[in-house]
């Protein structure tokens, strides 16, 4: 995943372990509830880097589905442009849903020799270390900060990684009913934090392979009138790890 955050809009960005460069876009005076990969960004400071690229190949969406405490290896690179504010050090605090800190990462912000900045982040994120709460759900807060030598203070953006008890899977977004003989769009969303790009998505219709894609979207050819199609997807990453999911679609011309 490469996320580009345009400096042409008033934007702020947060780096988050695993689900990282999250944008909070401010439209006029209205602050939109910001979410990237469905992980919200509840708080951020003014002065947080407002443009740049984040390279992080983790396709999972919130809430993550984990069978319990899960250690997730991750690495990310941020490429920040030169600006009026200098950022000299990055930190990320992993705070569980009880408000306790379980890990902190401090990464230097390196120059690139061309005015741009580079941050490399490597670590293991311990998802669910704070346990599960109501409804077998929980969350971790990733408090990301940059020390700004220009501002002489840390600027933070906090992202909330939500999770729930269960085995990782794919959910499929598909219409409930479709006309016969048409192609309809289906989209998969994975909740598996251990998947790493590049991921291939294999699509099965009624048990037969209908196609393989490198993005989680596909178009399925609907079947005959008054039939039900079973649509399945299997996401497999470069390490051979795979998760699957399925849904049914009703084919009818009367709806």
């Amino acid at each position, binding site marked *: *995943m*490469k996320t580009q955050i345009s400096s042409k809009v008033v934007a702020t960005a947060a780096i988050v372990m695993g689900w990282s460069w999250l944008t909070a876009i401010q439209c006029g005076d209205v602050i939109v509830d910001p979410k990237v990969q469905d992980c919200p960004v509840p708080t951020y400071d003014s002065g947080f880097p407002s443009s740049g*690229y984040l*390279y*992080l*190949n*983790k396709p999972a969406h919130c809430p993550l589905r984990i069978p319990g405490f899960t*250690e997730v*290896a*991750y*690495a*990310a*690179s941020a*490429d920040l442009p*030169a600006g009026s504010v200098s950022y*000299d*050090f990055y*930190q990320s*605090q992993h*705070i569980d849903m009880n*408000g*306790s*800190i*379980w*890990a*902190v*990462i*401090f*990464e*230097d*912000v*390196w*120059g*690139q*020799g*061309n*005015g*741009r900045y*580079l941050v*490399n*982040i*490597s*670590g*293991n994120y311990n998802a669910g270390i704070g346990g599960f709460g109501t409804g077998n759900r929980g969350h971790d*807060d990733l*408090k990301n900060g940059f*020390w700004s*030598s220009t501002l002489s203070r*840390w600027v933070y953006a906090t992202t909330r990684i939500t999770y729930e008890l269960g085995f990782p899977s794919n959910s499929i977004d598909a219409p409930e009913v479709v006309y016969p003989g048409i192609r309809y769009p289906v989209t998969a969303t994975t909740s598996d934090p251990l998947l*790493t*790009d*590049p991921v291939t998505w294999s699509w099965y219709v009624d048990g037969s392979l209908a196609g393989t894609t490198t993005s989680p979207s596909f178009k399925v050819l609907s079947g005959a009138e008054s039939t039900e199609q079973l649509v399945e997807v299997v996401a497999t990453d*470069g390490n051979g790890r795979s998760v699957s999911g399925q849904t049914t679609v009703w084919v009818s011309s009367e709806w």
Partner: protein
Amino acid sequence: MQCTEAPRSRARAVVFRTSRGYAAVVCGQVLVTVLAACSGESPTGARPMPTPSVLRASVTGFAAEAIGPNDQIQLAEFSGEENELTASEAVNLASVWTRNYGPMTRGWLERTHGAAINFKTLKTCGRPLYARSAFNAPPQSIPSPFRRSHGPWWLVTFCDDGSPSVSVAVSAWATELTVQAGMIRFPMVSGTEFVAIGIPLGHVGEYPMAPEMAIVMTAEQVGKRIAKVPELVTPLPTDGPPQLARWRLTLETPTMARTTSGQRATNEVFVGPTVVGERNIATSAAAPEQPVTIELNWIPVPHRGEAATAYTARAITQTIELLRRVDTPVRVEPISAWGN
């Protein structure tokens, strides 16, 4: 951590082109002394590795004595002033990182490499190179991630399908890391152990540069031999990651060099890349003014399980002055012309 100096400058090296075998630019003004050559930058990938005879003709003294039976320069052992990773330990950590963590930053690595990277065939190639800091070691009382920026680094080159494509810098002070079940085990307080960049397509040899190549390129440019064993010195973090370390080369006799700040005699040059993801190599001299100290900002670290609110209240940023080693310049200026 914040590295500042007064005055603080993020000036980058000016790009020059060598006149030795590459697209040349004319040195506009004739120096008082005879110009030996325009120098400055040249693409590493355009040069093959030097032959043993060319290498031997480019060295004298200690540098000549350091040529081993494999026709490579035998570099000095690391200082060992404090507990450090050995070369093989660094290579092992870099290999695990590249296999299990590298694909997650594929986009960054491929952009700076300039082409797709085949992670399945990535293997270490060449020697791990040891780069030291120009600064004295920060006190051990400062949390490790803040110290590592100013410590020594191992630079490990990885090739895919036979050509250099990824450079992984591993802090030689990352001694808290272990590998278990294919994963790197990080302590509760971690960071600044790894920096990974793509190696510009077409690069030959280890990154940032094979010492033999730096020697021969400099000897050709200057017309003088290299007299001491080269060493790699990292730039200020604000000037570049550890991979932009420069080879510090000592000439057999001083020679006149022209830089942005004027013309002066020098017997020491610095050779290395100046921009992440670009192939240009700069030949530089120490700038006339060097920082005596830089500021190192750091904050206390949290305890495991500490309440975030309590930590926030006591996490006050602190500053120490870090002394530069008097024998090691850290600010350099590209050399635009040589004279006798």
